[in-house]
């Protein structure tokens, strides 16, 4: 396995694990409070829709000319990657709340208990729809990542296998603990995925637009750590700006209190 293929597999594995943890929380909440059978039908239907999407779009992407494919894939990975990275940096700097799977599980459980009982052909409509929606929405982004990474390297099979391993690991962990996976370092994983997606997007986007990287594929060995360091620097910058703003607010409050006295 080449370095680029390893990067592909690792990126898909991490991205899929994060999304699978979030989907598992919804399925667990609905399954335990409503109906496991209906939840599993919802999960199955969502996986079928995602599989059709991958089967339909995969060949269309791989049949594109290489440079056009790289510009499209690079652009998409950058738009997605920068979104992941931006949220992860804001969370690491304390400017956005961390994703709390325990709180999400409690909210989903309460909503499932209070929802109407409505069955269609013996299937609990609420449990089916919530599981379907949860898995489909969390899975869509992974499907795009699997397709773009896989198509660009002509290794959709490898990308799909990495996604399968991630789902299997998360499901096994979920069955083992029978609770939402609250201890998964979700933000660190999102940070890593954001760096990988943005780095590969930068590399492939520039190549597709006609640029040549010094050192060829080896340029990724500089781009990935370079972007990771720049992003960590931005976390430190935001933390420092936040601390300075808080100190200024405290000083203003003290000055106002002094004037009143």
């Amino acid at each position, binding site marked *: 396995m080449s370095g680029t293929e390893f990067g592909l597999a690792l990126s898909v594995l991490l991205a899929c694990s994060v999304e699978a943890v979030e989907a598992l929380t919804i399925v667990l909440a609905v399954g335990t409070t409503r109906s496991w059978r209906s939840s599993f039908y919802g999960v199955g239907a969502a996986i079928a829709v995602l599989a059709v999407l991958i089967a339909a779009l995969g060949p269309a992407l791989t049949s594109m000319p290489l440079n056009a494919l790289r510009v499209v894939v690079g652009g998409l990975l950058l738009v997605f990657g*920068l979104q992941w990275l*931006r949220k992860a940096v804001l969370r690491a700097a304390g400017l956005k709340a961390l994703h709390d799977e325990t709180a999400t599980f409690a909210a989903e459980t309460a909503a499932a208990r209070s929802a109407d009982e409505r069955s269609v052909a013996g299937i609990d409509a609420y449990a089916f729809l919530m599981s379907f929606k949860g898995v489909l929405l969390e899975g869509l982004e992974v499907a795009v990542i699997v397709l773009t990474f896989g198509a660009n390297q002509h290794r959709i099979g490898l990308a799909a296998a990495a996604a399968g391993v991630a789902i299997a690991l998360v499901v096994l962990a979920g069955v083992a603990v029978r609770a939402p996976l609250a201890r998964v370092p979700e933000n660190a994983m999102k940070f890593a995925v954001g760096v990988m997606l943005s780095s590969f997007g*930068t590399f492939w986007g520039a190549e597709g637009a006609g640029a040549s990287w010094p050192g060829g594929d080896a340029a990724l060995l500089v781009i990935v750590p370079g972007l990771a360091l720049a992003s960590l620097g931005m976390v430190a910058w935001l933390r420092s700006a936040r601390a300075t703003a808080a100190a200024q607010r405290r000083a203003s409050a003290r000055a106002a209190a002094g004037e009143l006295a």
Partner: protein
Amino acid sequence: MSWVRSTLEGVWEFVVGDDWVTAVGVVAALGVTALIAGAGATAWWVMPIAVISLLALSLRRAAR
């Protein structure tokens, strides 16, 4: 036609998210790279500078 609108809104939200400026910046950076490379000059440096600048600007907007 409401389902067409909601589908388009869903696709926009899914692909672009809550920061359309960054998405436009990515497209512009790819265009500049293509122009420079098309003129026969070295163009690989455009994307790393653009990506780090776009991320920093996006974070500054979000932190305000």
